[in-house]
């Protein structure tokens, strides 16, 4: 699977997991928002109730109509508030409690109204009592009046104290009065009794109202508290959900991260190891990565790179090897070049005196030839021949050396190898005939045209074939074979069934002036020069020889020479 897809899936799962609690939390919170209204209403009810109680106290104190009106209004508000959130209240406290709440409110209302009525009656009674009191005061005199005045004081005391002991005192005192107008006194007494009973009723009603109020208080408080608890619960759930969401975000996120990191890190580790191996030059193992497609294709690319790198490294190694070889050749070529220059210089310096010797000796021969016989003529003639012979030998050497020096320059052109061999053989025909040697030509006709220096190659063939002719006995056999070696090279084999070269001499045959043919016959430069030419042309010369069986020289000649400028200097 692709890392991209993996990441996408992981991210989606992560998001979903994190979102689920968040969605629930959102739902809870929106419920909470709806629930806030009943809470407000409940709190309104509670505050209406508190207001009600405050007004109730005022009313009980002032007993006036305005406060009563206010009280009524607040009772109405309380009822309305309850109606508004009836369903919540029902849920909160249950139907039975709700009924008793409503009952308590009604009781409170009726109690209040009754109380208000009582207050009216009380006022009327007080007025009547006061009037009667004043009337009786006017009628009485003496000790009776004194007693009555005391009674009036007790009357006031009753109005303030409103308890039964004050009433008892009032009754005892009133019993002391006898002479007053019967009707008025009776009425006075009755009024006082009525006032007392009104006070009793008021007390009763006030208690009732207080009871109702306390019931209302209990319920409203429990409603508010219930609503508060609900909201608390909702808040708790939301908080928990949010917490869960947070935990999921953190824990699942961390898990997914760890997992992803592992799926990414493991292949990367593999790749790193592989890179280190490759850097260390170890191409033996290929990179194998399991997991994501990207890594697999990366591994493929890296493997390909390693293969290419391996190729490059080996070709570089080859190139370095070649370079080493080339450098060796170059050094050799440089050595040869300077050797050539020295040889050329020496040869030139020697040629002029040699020419003088040659001419002088020649003149001596000329003079001897025209002079008459004398005692040592023969001997002198022989000596002079010795001189000219040596001069000839020197000339051969210097000419070869000069030729070698000259061969330091090469001219590359397209050439036919077989043709060059045939031309060389034509040049050597007399030598071969003289030796009565048999020549076998095995020239591959499909040989490609090569680029090389024809004249110099012919020089090499000449030297090698000449050596072969020298090596074979009369009637010996010389075989020349050409063939394609590989893509870039052709081969020439020059074999003879002659004397062969002993092992201890084989190492020396390419050295200059090494010859086994005697001073008169060989210069020992043939193979040296050939070797130099062959190296210059980027070719190779090898020799295989067995004493008594024969010798084979093998030439590897590139189809296109790889020559450096320096080498052609």
């Amino acid at each position: 699977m692709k890392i991209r897809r993996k990441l996408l899936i992981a991210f989606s799962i992560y998001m979903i997991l994190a979102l689920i609690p968040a969605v629930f939390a959102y739902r809870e919170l929106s419920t909470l928002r709806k629930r806030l209204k009943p809470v407000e209403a409940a709190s309104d009810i509670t505050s209406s109730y508190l207001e009600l109680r405050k007004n109730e106290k005022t009313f009980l104190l002032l007993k006036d109509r305005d406060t009563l009106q206010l009280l009524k209004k607040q009772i109405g508000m309380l009822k309305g508030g309850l109606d508004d959130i009836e369903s919540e209240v029902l849920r909160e406290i249950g139907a039975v409690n709700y009924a008793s709440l409503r009952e308590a409110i009604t009781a409170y209302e009726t109690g209040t109204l009754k109380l208000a009525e009582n207050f009216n009656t009380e006022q009327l009674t007080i007025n009547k009592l006061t009037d009667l009191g004043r009337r009786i005061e006017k009628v009485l005199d003496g000790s009776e009046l004194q007693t009555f005045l005391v009674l009036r004081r007790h009357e006031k005391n009753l109005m303030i104290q409103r308890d039964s002991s004050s009433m008892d005192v009032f009754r005892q005192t009133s019993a002391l009065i006898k002479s007053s107008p019967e009707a008025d006194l009776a009425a006075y007494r009755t009024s006082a009794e009525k006032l007392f009973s009104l006070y009793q009723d008021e007390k009763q009603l006030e208690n009732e109202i207080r009871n109702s109020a306390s019931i209302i208080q209990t319920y409203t408080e429990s409603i508010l508290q219930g609503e508060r608890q609900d909201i608390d619960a909702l808040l708790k759930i939301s908080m928990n959900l949010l917490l869960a969401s947070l935990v999921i975000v953190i824990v699942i996120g961390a898990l997914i991260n760890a997992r992803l990191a592992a799926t990414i890190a493991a292949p990367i580790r593999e790749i790193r190891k592989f890179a280190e191996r490759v850097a260390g030059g170890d191409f033996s193992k290929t990179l194998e990565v399991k997991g994501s497609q990207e890594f697999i294709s990366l591994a493929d690319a890296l493997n390909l790179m390693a293969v290419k790198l391996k190729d490059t490294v080996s070709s570089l190694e080859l190139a370095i090897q070649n370079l080493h070889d080339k450098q060796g050749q170059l050094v050799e070529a440089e050595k040869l070049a300077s050797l050539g220059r020295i040889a050329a210089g020496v040869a030139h310096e020697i040629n002029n005196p040699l020419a003088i010797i040659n001419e002088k000796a020649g003149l001596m021969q000329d003079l001897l030839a025209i002079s008459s016989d004398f005692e040592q003529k023969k001997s002198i003639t022989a000596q002079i021949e010795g001189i000219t012979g040596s001069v000839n030998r020197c000339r051969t050497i210097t000419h070869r050396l000069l030729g070698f020096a000259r061969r330091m320059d090469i001219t590359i052109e397209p050439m036919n190898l077989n043709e060059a061999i045939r031309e060389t053989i034509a040049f050597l025909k007399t030598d071969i005939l003289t030796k009565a040697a048999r020549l076998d030509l095995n020239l591959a006709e499909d040989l490609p045209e090569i680029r090389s220096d024809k004249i110099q190659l012919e020089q090499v063939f000449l030297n090698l074939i000449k050596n072969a002719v020298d090596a074979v006995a009369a009637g010996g056999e010389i075989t020349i074979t050409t063939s394609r070696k590989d893509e870039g090279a052709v081969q020439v084999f020059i074999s003879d069934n002659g004397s062969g070269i002993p092992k201890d001499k084989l190492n020396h045959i390419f050295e200059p002036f090494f010859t086994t043919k005697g001073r008169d016959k060989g210069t020992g430069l043939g193979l040296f020069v050939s070797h130099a030419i062959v190296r210059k042309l980027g070719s190779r010369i090898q020799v295989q020889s067995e004493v008594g069986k024969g010798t084979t020289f093998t030439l590897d000649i590139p189809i296109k020479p790889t020559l450096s400028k320096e080498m052609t200097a």
Partner: protein
Amino acid sequence: MNKIKVLIVDDEHDFAATLAERLCLRSYDARIVVNACETLSLIDKIKPDVVLLDLNLQGISGIEILMTLKNVSPEVEVILLTGHMDIARSIEGLRLDSFHYIFKPFDIRELTEKIDAVTAKHGRKQGNEHA
């Protein structure tokens, strides 16, 4: 008197004198010039058939003489004598390879054959041979 006139131009007196003597023995009219500067006037005076010119002359370059000679008296045959193959090659480089040259040291027969050959086309025949 129908001898081939040969002028040897070589600052190596020993060589030139010996060679001249040997050529005279072979019935050539051989003379020598050792001073390169005199060469041209001498050629004008004696009008040789063949000039044997050493290319390694001191003072004046053999090639210079050769060029002048070819311009002044083109009928004169020149055989270059040289101990140095590179000089011969540099002449080749000048595209003067129609010249004859012979490397020192050489066999006298090689030289006389060449002299005879180059003069033959002028209708002269030496036919003089010494053992």
